[in-house]
């Protein structure tokens, strides 16, 4: 019975450059061409939930980067000792531990963020991108490559949710990182002029719309079609 699904892409070469072409691709591919959110449509849940404002989104993005990179590294180091039959549970245990660490650290040093994000940070465990990278890459590749791969995927996730948050905060609350933008613009045109905010943007529906538009624009540009 073979349930091995990891791609074996290990290439034996003496001393590959620290950032060789192949390794650069590990980072750059998930940014656009193989983006976890817009192409693979993974991790949508948190992309909808946390993106009403830029600040919590940034914290969420950093948390996800930390969790993916560290879990990819840990699993990659252990990949030859992990029993195949329980590998999913092992991956889950490692991810859950890392997520709990992030949550505890936020609680100690950024309590306001913890209050706002706690539920969603916990849900990083179920973020398909994390488990997906572990199963598809870290189980069959060396630690350094796994770090790059995890970093790339996490960045691909991060820039999309930051982009969504940018538009949602701008149109929904009229601010960027809490700095009032709409008010300032309105004040240029005199007292009678004011830009209205759209409360649809504050609800999850707004995220769906923005995300849909981003996917549309991106797929038109890259010519990606679902098979």
């Amino acid at each position, binding site marked *: *019975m073979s349930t091995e699904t990891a791609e074996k892409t290990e290439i034996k070469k003496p001393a590959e450059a620290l950032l060789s072409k192949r390794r650069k691709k590990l980072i750059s591919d998930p940014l656009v061409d193989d983006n976890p959110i817009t192409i693979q449509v993974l991790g949508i849940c948190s992309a909808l939930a946390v993106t*009403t404002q830029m600040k919590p989104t940034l914290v969420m993005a950093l948390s996800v980067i930390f969790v993916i990179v560290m879990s990819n590294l840990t699993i990659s180091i252990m990949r030859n*000792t*992990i*029993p*195949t*039959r*329980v590998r999913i*549970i*092992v991956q889950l*245990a*490692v991810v859950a*531990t890392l997520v*709990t*660490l992030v949550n*505890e*650290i936020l*609680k*100690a*040093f950024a*309590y*306001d963020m*913890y*209050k706002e994000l706690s*539920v969603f940070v916990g849900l990083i465990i179920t973020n398909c991108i994390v488990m997906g990278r572990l199963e598809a890459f870290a189980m069959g590749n060396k630690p350094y490559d796994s770090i790059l791969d995890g970093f790339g995927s996490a960045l691909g996730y991060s820039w999309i949710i930051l982009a969504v948050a940018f538009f949602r905060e701008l149109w*929904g609350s009229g601010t960027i990182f809490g700095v009032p933008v709409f008010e300032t613009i309105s004040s240029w045109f005199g007292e009678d002029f004011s830009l209205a905010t759209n*409360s649809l943007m*504050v*609800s*999850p529906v707004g995220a769906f719309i923005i995300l849909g538009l981003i996917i549309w624009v991106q797929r038109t540009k890259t010519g990606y079609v679902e098979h």
Partner: protein
Amino acid sequence: MQQSNTYIITFSVILTVVLGFLLSGTSQLLGPIQKEAEALDNKKQILGAVMDVEKIATMKPKEIKAYYESTISSKVVDINGEEVAGVTAETVDIAKNYKKPAEDRLYPVYVYHEEGSEDKVVAYILPVFGAGLWDSIWGYLALKTDLNTIEGVTFSHAGETPGLGARITTLDIQQRYQGKEIFGESGELMAVVMQKGEGKDYSSDPHKVDGMSGATLTAKGVNEMLKNYLSSYLPYLEKVKGES
């Protein structure tokens, strides 16, 4: 490669122990810092009922602590308004007390006075707790020295709908409570009731507050919460009134 059962079990046990130690170690290490952060957050919420929230946000943790200590004196009372000795108000877990019947709960009172002089009371801050639409809601209600006019409120929630019920945490909503009165003309407790619908002017009615469009059920929870806790604090309020 198929590993033996012994290998799998040994591997799992070692992994569990290592991860377990890692987590409990972190928890031990960060525990005191987390407790402090929690206590500070609580103080911020209490002060938020009587102070400008934006001003609190600019204060450093040390300043908040110092200001809190010089302006707030706290005590705990029971349902009859009698002071309960030997309990620190700040350590009372309102959520846990909420689960008990009203008669058995502990009721903390935070007296906000002028800096350094405990006799010059500015406001009485009372914690409130209840159920919103999805999860718990709580907050602090500050009463002026006439024990009738609301000085200010702060509300927090665990899981109200963003953009709808979650608006109770915004200044916009909380300011609507300022200056409202909790007792009717003949002295009966009326609390303050948030209305259905939004955009009406209730400035002439001291017992009504403009509602939140699309969040009537959360508003109901808030109304219920205020009424419940105000009636529980009623004996205490009457006692204070009798003293002055």
